[in-house]
């Protein structure tokens, strides 16, 4: 049984996780495997705190793509995987992993969710959440200050130095790989469409991976 893999991409603060949450809420957690790209940050334990502070975490090279593609491939073939876990305060990979068994629906969520072509080809549905830059920044600001104890200045500096340029260079262009773009963050009508499609797949509708789309154009 081939799973139905959905890629959910979009800038930091665009509302990706809201889409994932709503899908789980609508179809049930037992039918959905969530694959969070943030768990695949490279381990930086060999770097000094000083060196770590200079790492560009908003660049695709900050991620372990080898492991990510391998694990997605395993899940696509019905093989359970050991999902890495990341400690964002120390920028290190935790010793513990989380065992994940593939469900019929797999959601891959991350700012670079549509970045890797091999992974894109395994997705029957590619979604890009397109939220205005200012709105994304406001959400990020709130989250980083209240949940991560960051200062206003440090958030803005990171945003200007890394988040924004990396978004323009690497995230924004992946919009072209999406089957659908959801403007203004997520909305009910778009979610209902996505969920209808998932329900139809759960009820036995065929999954089509050959969408004949545009990779050769790029």
């Amino acid at each position: 049984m081939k799973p139905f893999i959905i890629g959910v991409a979009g800038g930091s603060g665009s509302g990706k996780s809201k889409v994932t949450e709503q899908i789980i809420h609508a179809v049930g957690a037992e039918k959905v495997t969530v694959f969070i790209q943030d768990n695949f940050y490279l381990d930086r334990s060999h770097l000094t705190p000083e060196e770590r502070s200079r790492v560009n975490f908003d660049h695709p090279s900050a991620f372990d793509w080898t492991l990510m593609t391998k694990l997605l491939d395993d899940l696509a073939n019905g093989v359970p995987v050991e999902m890495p876990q990341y400690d964002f305060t120390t920028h290190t990979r935790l010793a513990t992993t989380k065992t994940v068994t593939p469900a019929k629906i797999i959601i891959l969520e991350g700012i670079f969710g549509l970045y890797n072509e091999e992974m894109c080809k395994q997705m029957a549905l590619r979604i890009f959440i397109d939220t205005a830059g200012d709105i994304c920044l406001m959400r990020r600001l709130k989250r980083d200050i209240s949940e991560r104890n960051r200062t206003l200045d440090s958030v803005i500096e990171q945003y200007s130095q890394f988040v924004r340029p990396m978004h323009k260079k690497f995230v924004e262009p992946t919009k072209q790989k999406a089957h659908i773009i959801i403007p203004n963050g997520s909305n009910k009508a778009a979610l209902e469409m996505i969920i209808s499609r998932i329900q139809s797949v759960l009820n036995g509708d065929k999954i089509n991976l050959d969408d004949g789309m545009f990779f050769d154009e790029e």
Partner: protein
Amino acid sequence: MSSFIIGVAGGSGSGKSTVTEHIVGAIGADKVAVIIQDNYYVDLGHLTPEQRRKVNFDHPDSFDWELMLKQIDDLSNGVPIEMPTYDYSRDTRRAETITVLPAPIIVIEGLFALLDASMRKYMSLRIFVDTADDIRFIRRLQRDIIERGRSTESVIKQYLESVRPMHRQFIEPSKRNAHIIIPHGANKAALEMLVARVRAAINHEELSVSTYFEEV
């Protein structure tokens, strides 16, 4: 019967009609009522040929919004409509009309389908088909030359003088009124989603999406 109304907008040559045709083909013509905005061009029979040449057919004012809105309202209330048809060679409304019967699904297709707020209120799903300008131009060129016998020069002239500026002024901004944007014209995955949504509407399926989302 309350119908599920879908608005399909996008520039000239974007692939709107492909989306509409796909819905009709997938669920059957008896279940879909289609309203095409192109049929609602204003009758210009009272103008001289010289005056007609000066009309900007790519501006929203070239359409009979009042009639269109009235007919959408009728259809949504289960009342059959007589959709007008247009004679493009004489810029007049034809005597014949098309009878459109109420159906569980109504598709409203047009360049400006997402422009007018009072029309958008009827729509449960608003779609913008977003295709690159150059691709749209090629399609328009081919269609106008082959189907309408126009010259390349006249197509280019109209494109630069009205199609393009009107697109930028009115159509492109209406993209933000969409619930979903389909890039690169219609694609299989997007159409499969759309058909699944339409089937769910016909079968009155419960989709349990939380309602806290702000309306666009």
